[in-house]
């Protein structure tokens, strides 16, 4: 019940400018497609719709997180949102292109190497990427102050900061209860973010690592 509504709201919120008619048609199709058991919904379209929602989460996380001054070279430097995974990148780019966060332009990139990855403030590691990468649970070269967001069950265990999960047809996000150990240094989370997070006890997992 909440699913299509939530998607719709997010979509609307993400669009600063009036949405072109053609895009609304697509959104409506996504909305309909997201409904479970819908006849015309294809797996590919469902995945695309979910990424569009997750794009909104990524955008809002950026607003509730404070980076240290060292994370940027200048006050005008854009915020780099790095997407690992082709499908996710396409969806996020569609939704967030041209947006700003706290006065910074938002750069949506798909890093090709570790050097590029090192300059990312927000990182999204898609299930697709992890499925493909195999050897590594986390892309190489990421900065310590990068906000690492994932969507796989063991993402937090593998050093992720926030993990997006599906629950009751809605998207929720997990964070570790004892964040001090796992939180990237100098990265500050707003209490507003923390109070909404599903907190997990990751000591065991952290100990395993």
């Amino acid at each position, binding site marked *: 019940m*909440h699913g299509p509504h939530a998607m719709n*709201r997010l979509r*609307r*919120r993400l669009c600063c400018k009036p949405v072109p008619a053609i895009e609304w048609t697509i959104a409506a199709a996504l909305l309909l497609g997201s409904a479970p058991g819908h006849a015309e919904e294809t797996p590919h379209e469902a995945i695309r719709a979910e990424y569009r929602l997750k794009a909104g*989460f990524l955008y809002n996380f950026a*607003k*509730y997180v404070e980076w240290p001054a060292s994370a940027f070279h200048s006050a005008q430097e854009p915020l780099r949102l790095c997407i690992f995974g082709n499908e996710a990148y396409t969806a996020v780019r569609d939704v967030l292109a041209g947006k700003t966060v706290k006065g910074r332009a938002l750069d949506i990139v798909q890093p090709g190497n570790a050097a590029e990855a090192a300059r990312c403030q927000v990182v999204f590691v898609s299930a697709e990427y992890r499925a493909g990468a195999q050897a590594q649970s986390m892309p190489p070269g990421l900065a310590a102050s990068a906000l690492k967001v994932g969507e796989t069950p063991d993402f937090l265990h593998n050093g992720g900061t926030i993990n997006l999960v599906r629950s009751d047809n809605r*998207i929720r*996000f997990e964070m570790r209860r004892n964040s001090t150990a796992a939180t990237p240094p100098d990265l500050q989370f707003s209490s507003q973010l923390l109070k*909404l997070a599903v907190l997990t006890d990751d000591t065991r997992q952290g100990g395993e690592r």
Partner: protein
Amino acid sequence: MMRRFRDRPLHSKLTVIIMVTCCTALVLGYAALAWRYAVGEQHKLVRHLEIVADVTGANTISALAFDDAAWVRRHLQSLQADPLVVAAAVYDQRGTMFASFQARAAEGADAASTVRVSRALLLDGEPLGSIAVDGDARQLHSALLADALIMSVIVMATGLVSWALATRLQRLVSEPIARLARTMERVATSRDYSQRVEPSGHDEVGMLIGSFNEMLDQIESRDRRSRIAAAQLEHLAHHDALTQLPNRTLFRIRLQQALGEADRQPQRVGVMFVDLDRFKTINDSLGHAVGDLLLQEAAGRISESVRETDVVARLGGDEFAVLLNGIRSASDAARIASKLVEQLARPFRIAEQDLFISASVGICRGSESAKDVETLLKNADAAMYRAKEGGRNDYRFFSTEMSADATESLTMTNGLAHALDNGEFAVHYQPRIELATRRVTGVEALVRWQHPVHGLIPPARFIPVAEASGMIEPIGDWVLATACRQARAWSDAGLGEVQVAVNFSARQFRHADFPEHVASILRRSGLPMQRLEVELTETLMMADHDKTQHVLSALKAMGASLAMDDFGTGYSSLSYLKRFPLDRLKIDQSFVRGLPANQHDLQITKAIVALAKSLNLRLVAEGVETPQQCDVVQQLGCEEAQGYLFGAPMPAADMARFLAAHQCVGDLVTGS
């Protein structure tokens, strides 16, 4: 409503005004305070709700951002603790409700009793939606309602207190006015202007009461003055100013009353008419002042002569009347009348001289045929005239045959107007004899009125009427012209050059051209002026000295001779005898009648003769009826005489025969 109020009594108006003022002030004051309170409370509530909305919005915006409606709902539930919040809702950017909260105590709260505050929710400057918080204004409203209830109780209590006070205090104002109004009404209905309003203070009402009382003072005094004036007027209307006796009007009223009281015995009421003889002569000769004194004195004597119960009135001029009450017999009235005549015959001492008058009294007693005012007055008047004709200084009872005379006198004035045109007048002539020669030296022309109904009317009856009406002038002219023509005719017939003596009235002398007028009449008749003798009365001589002297001198200059008629009866001084160019004195017959026996008359006649001699006037004795009288007057020194002894007044034809018979002087001796 307003009209009804206008008709309310003053005290009720004042009470209503005071109460309305009090309650209005109270209600307005309360309304202002209540409004201020309501606005303040509303503002406080809104402020509170704004804070709630701000805090809640800040807490829920992240949940909205991360699409966590459950969290928002949970958080909104915490507003349950705030009794002022009845509902809250978070809306997304599209205005669709995202999450809402409804307080348990919100049942019954409708739009009217809630206050809504909305806040936009912004994240990083980007609008995410809005939050709305509904506050509960019912508490505020119920507080206001409770206040209003308390206030209405206070207003009612105040109304009662102000009514109680107003009903008492308004008396301070309304009571004096009400008192004034009551008194005015009492005065208006009772017309008793002696009432006054009790004064109250010096305010406007006090001034009003003062003015009203002053007005009553004036009305009262004016009332008193007008009552006095009315009484004076009443007195004036019913009394004679000179003698203070009742006048004719009051006399008639009293007579009517007396007749009414006498009921079936009209004979118990009597009326006496009193006429003063010769009063007119005194009045004319000695002046009005003396005449007035005489009238007053006479009035006093009349009043003294009658009884206490009788009413004396002055009817006018020298006429008085007495109402006799309760007379038992004719002798009662006769006694009173004779006493009255006697009293008035006594000399009146006025202005240091004794004046003699007398009274003619007519008496009429009521009877079956004369029991009304008019008849009694008329009869008494007739009886009085009869007394006058009978020689004056006497009284007469009315007898039925007198009434015809009385009636006739009333018609005389009317008859006179036509008598001249109808040729009812005639001139009779009485011879005047020269005693020494017994020759006819002249004739006196005397007018007679042959009335077609009443027969011959003597001059004494109609001359006064003619004088009064002015008819005397044409009559006098006609007599003069007739007599002159007759004298001329006799001359032409060879009957001698007799002189014709004509009487003139004072009225005729008033005209300045009288001498010319006389001359023209004589010219027309062809009689020389020397043949005319103008006979004058003493009264005429006194009327206007200068004018009379002028007229007489002119007549004398034209050749006419002048004679003084009825000499000795008047009261004029003898000085005029010297002043006027008289030729003859005619001794009044009343002196001659007593001769020779009456010494008094003899002495008077002697005195007159002496006077005439000293003034070189010819003397004529009038009323010589006996040879003895003729002898006496001749011996005393009278040159001429007139009288029945020689010849009564006779028509012209008889006179012509008389003249013819006595052409010869010697033949004239009649009896001697």
